[in-house]
């Protein structure tokens, strides 16, 4: 609805006046006007529900059942799978490695989400103030980074940080005279995640920057100008005046980033192939892969997946409750 009101540029004053009084984007009103369409809504949902039930729902049920079974590779080939109650869950919950992986994933996710959001927002604010040429230049750069497939990006970044022939080591040694001859960037877990974070953030900033930028363009000019006139410092201006307009965008973008960064797989998996120590660099995605596919313990892998989903649901609870309260669901 915000898009629509801001789109009524033909009569800006009328609309923006209302906005300045109530900077909070108006709650969705369409909910009240929803019709009880009999069978129609169900029929509209049929295609999506059919595909999701078949490709995700059914395997998900199997996965859930599997998580209570002793399910190894032999069971894939048809051996009977005995039910073992909560043994798989117990095994994971007492396993120190799992908690380390969990902690690591959260820390990594937090760093990436915070860094991505800050960088993305700053770049978006910057794009508002740039001239046409530089804004275009920046957009092209961000687009290129965004368009780069994650697997390809990881291979290229791995090549850039290569121990023997990487450009980073080469420049640090030859241009700055530092002792980075054959420095391995991946062997130390912190350094590994530094490289991984660069790859993830580099790939995610464009999405955030473009989304926030698009949101900023819909904040009425008068509001932006007002924010520049009064004496508050720029952070306070942003928080008090601009942020309320972008709140729902931020909420959605953050929840997506959290889900994506907690589930991160490709970048970590590919980096582990290049170097580093797996059991010190596993995140939830690679850990599940290693347990279920690598070592053939599909039951335990299923249990980890179930636990992961429960944890993520708990995290997004705030968002869901907020949305229900606003009747936005």
């Amino acid at each position, binding site marked *: 609805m*915000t*898009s629509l009101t*801001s789109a*009524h*540029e033909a009569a800006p004053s009328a609309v923006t006046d209302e906005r300045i009084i109530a900077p909070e984007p108006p709650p*969705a009103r*369409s909910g009240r006007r*929803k019709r*009880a*369409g009999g069978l*129609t*809504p169900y029929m*509209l*949902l049929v295609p*999506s529900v059919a*595909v*999701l039930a078949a490709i*995700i729902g059914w*395997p998900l049920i199997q996965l859930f059942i599997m998580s209570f079974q002793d399910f190894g590779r032999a069971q894939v080939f048809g051996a009977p799978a005995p039910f073992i109650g909560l043994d798989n869950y117990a095994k994971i919950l007492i396993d120190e490695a799992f908690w380390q992986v969990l902690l690591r994933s959260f820390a990594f996710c937090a760093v990436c989400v915070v860094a991505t959001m800050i960088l993305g927002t700053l770049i978006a604010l*910057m794009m508002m103030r*740039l*001239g046409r040429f*530089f804004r275009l*230049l*920046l*957009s092209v*750069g*961000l*687009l*290129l*980074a*965004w*368009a*780069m*497939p994650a697997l*390809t990006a990881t*291979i*290229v970044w791995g*090549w*850039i940080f290569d121990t023997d*022939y990487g450009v980073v080591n080469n420049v640090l040694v030859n241009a700055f005279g530092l002792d980075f001859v054959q420095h391995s960037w991946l062997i130390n877990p912190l350094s590994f995640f530094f490289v991984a974070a660069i790859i993830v953030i*580099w790939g995610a900033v*464009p999405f955030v920057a*473009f*989304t926030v930028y*698009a*949101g900023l*363009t*819909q904040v009425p000019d008068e509001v932006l*100008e007002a924010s520049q006139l009064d004496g508050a410092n720029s952070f306070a201006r942003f928080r008090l005046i601009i942020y309320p307009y972008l709140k*729902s*965008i931020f*909420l*959605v973008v953050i929840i997506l980033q959290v889900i994506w960064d907690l589930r991160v*797989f*490709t970048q970590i998996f590919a980096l582990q192939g290049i170097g580093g120590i797996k059991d010190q660099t596993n995140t939830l*995605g690679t850990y599940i892969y290693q347990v*279920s596919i690598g070592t053939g313990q599909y039951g335990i892998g299923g249990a980890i997946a179930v636990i992961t989903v429960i944890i993520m649901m708990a995290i997004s609870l705030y968002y869901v409750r907020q949305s229900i309260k606003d009747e*936005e*669901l």
Partner: protein
Amino acid sequence: MTATSTRRAPAASVARPRRYKARRRWSSALLSVLAVVIFLASVFPVYWMVNTSFQPNNEIRGSVLHFWPDNFTLRNYETVLFDPGRTPFLPALGNSLIVTILTVAIALVFAFLASLAVTRFRFRSRKGFILAILIVQMIPAEAMIVSTYRVLDDWSLLNTIAGLTFVYVATVLPFTIWTLRGFVNGVPADLEEAGMIDGLSRTGAFWRITFPLLAPGLVATGVFGFIQAWNEFLLALVVNSRPEMMTLPVWLRTFQTLTGTTNWAAIMAGSTLMAIPVIIFFLIVQGRMTSGLVAGAVKG
């Protein structure tokens, strides 16, 4: 009309009153420098990939860095494209394109219907459906490979375009519905009703009035689906095991062997080729994309 003015919004905000400009000449120069720095940081890996792909294989491992392909060669591209010993590029490109385009098209149609249902109608389990859509996105795909494989096997969809497309549609559908419904919500039913008063049928009102307003939203969500389907590796590896059904990410992996010699220059050439269609797609749709993203997000 609404869609066009939405896109005009950024331009409007640039035309800021002049009196602020003088005060900010210095800071704007600084900003421009910063913009160039960010541009370079964004582009460097892309540039390094392309740069490496044009160098002879024995030079990329030298102690001297070549920031420009002095000994320009197309050999790596020849290797990647025409070497008879390799799995050919073109069939893999074809598979990737077909699967990706089908995925995007089907996911958009399905998601659009579903988002109409959840925004325009009141019905039982509406909230449940939306919650389910959110939760589905949290499931780690790595855990479900064996189960997914079996489902496709039961339907004889292994090693088919249809099978892989199905899986990808299911993968991108939740995000697509989730984002698209925000966009559909943004188009008030009033507009359609107004159109009907003007003598259009309900369907006519929908196609003439509502649908054009949705175009940016469809584009924005389509881009997401495109990237997902284009880059997916693990499922494609397992589900489409026949070489003639290979997609590009799997094809790219054939250059990386476990113990043998890795042809880095060829991998970079292959990576460049793989990135080109995505970049082209991006450049085509980017104008419509950003406005679409935000409109979806606002209501998300």
